[in-house]
């Protein structure tokens, strides 16, 4: 069997609906299989689920997704924003922040301001605690329920 024969063979098989073909020699072992079998499996699941892409919460690229944080810090208490607005760590641009990491604050002490509609809403600690993390940056917009501080009851 020369190259021309092989060429003819390839052409023949290509034009038929044969899926497998075998030919052995001296003297002859031919095997022909029709129909596609394996192609069906091709289905490679690219993505498990996650059908809907999510819109970014706020445009600011610095904002970490609110949902991601809590999982990491389950052992701390979370102080959340009760309103939509802008987070301010200090009473004025020139003042020092109300609290910083490591501070022990008493119940009722102001932790920050969330400004909404020109109204300065003071957010107070509900219990005595130690500030573990200030989650939001100064002047950052916050949503309802966003975590502002991680604290530890003391």
């Amino acid at each position, binding site marked *: 069997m020369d190259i021309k024969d092989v060429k003819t063979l390839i052409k023949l098989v290509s034009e038929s609906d044969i899926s497998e073909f075998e030919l052995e020699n001296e003297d002859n072992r031919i095997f022909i299989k029709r129909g596609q079998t394996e192609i069906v499996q091709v289905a490679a699941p690219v993505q498990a*689920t996650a*059908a*809907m*892409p*999510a*819109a*970014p*919460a*706020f*445009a600011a690229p610095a904002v970490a997704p*609110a949902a991601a944080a809590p999982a990491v810090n389950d052992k701390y208490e979370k102080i959340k924003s009760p*309103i*939509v*607005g*802008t987070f301010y760590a200090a009473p004025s641009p020139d003042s020092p922040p109300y609290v910083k990491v490591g501070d022990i604050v008493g119940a009722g002490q102001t932790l920050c301001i969330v400004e*909404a*509609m020109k109204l300065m809403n003071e957010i107070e600690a509900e219990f005595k605690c130690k500030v573990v993390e200030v989650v939001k940056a100064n002047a950052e*917009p*916050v*949503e*309802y*329920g*966003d975590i502002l501080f991680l604290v530890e009851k003391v």
Partner: protein
Amino acid sequence: MIHKVVIANRGEIALRILRACKELGIKTVAVHSTVDSEALHVKLADQSVCIGPAPSIDSYLNMKAILSAAEVTDADAIHPGYGFLSENAEFAEICNNCGLTFIGPTAENMRLMGDKISARQTVTAAGVPILPGTKSGVPSVDEAIKIAGEIGYPVIIKATAGGGGRGMKIVHAPTSLPNAFAAARSEAQAGFGNPEVYIEKYCERPRHVEIQILADKHGNVIHLGERDCSIQRRHQKLIEEAPCSILPDEVRRKMGDCAVAAAKAVNYSSVGTIEFLLDADYNFYFMEMNTRVQVEHPVTEMITGIDIIKEQIMSAAGHPLRFKQEDIKINGHAIECRINAEDPEKFTPCPGKIDGYHTPGGLGVRVDSAVYDQYKVLPHYDSMIAKLIVHAETREEAIKRMARALDEYIIEGIKTTIPFHQRVMNNREFIEGNIDTGFLERTKL
């Protein structure tokens, strides 16, 4: 022009507004309650802000939270959708005071048309007919005869303390009035402990027909024809169509003129709807004006080719109307079915997770819905989860198209009113157009 819109709503109308904004190149901010964070319009918006917990009063009705969301996202306009704050004059006013464009009519428009008595006075002055009647008690049979004569027969005598049809008497001629009056009074006494009755013009088999208004801030007002929303259950619209299949052209023209006159009388400046009661003799009476976009606006879009939400946004941005009345051409027939997450027999709400979802497609089929497979229909809000809208050359073809589209619509995991709509589309009376607001009450589907 407007650059960024806060969509102060949820569900399909939030998505509807979002789509219009996207096509206009306007950025969108979705505001949502904590339980709505997985909503489709939240996922598709340019930005999203959680504004409060599940109860509407703390989120979608929370003006301060919505305004704060606009502030922190640097939005310059708010679209209220329908329901929630859409007809709240105070909210419209605050928006304007905050320098935000409220995409809707003025607070004054809302106040004038929101109050039933001032609305009736205003439109009457503009020459729009209202349903004649006394509204307050009629003391004597002589007085009753005089009033009925003024109103014109048939009239209906109703107990001022009553409701639900009890003690009502329909009178077709003066001769039967004394007996009916006496009977109504005694039934009212027996039923409600108060014999007082009043007299109103009686509408036989009334239809709910409404006119879509489009107005700008420069005094231009046109209408986009009428919708027939007679298929109602307990005053809740379930199926709407456009045009109204039985309306004579002459009446259509008069009704349209009246609607425009009513809107002009209050210097109306956005989209809105004038609702009329149409009786069997084609007399029509002003009921009320809705100073917002309505759930059923798509049927009008289908037959006019006009994107009502885009026009509303452009109008709010100060653009003059792009159309004159004579530019408006009505093409074919459109029907909308409101698909609710409800038991299709008892109409009890059925919230829960959708497990299997496939929407119908093809020529003349439109789906306005914010749900998707695995979406949880929440118990906190309205049960409407989708609007299925079809457009065809004729009413007959539209009904067949709706029937086949309903057959293709698959929503599993929860009960929906799809089977109810299928029954209506196969009902002979409905197919023949013999509908009025009492249709569902009297019809065995």
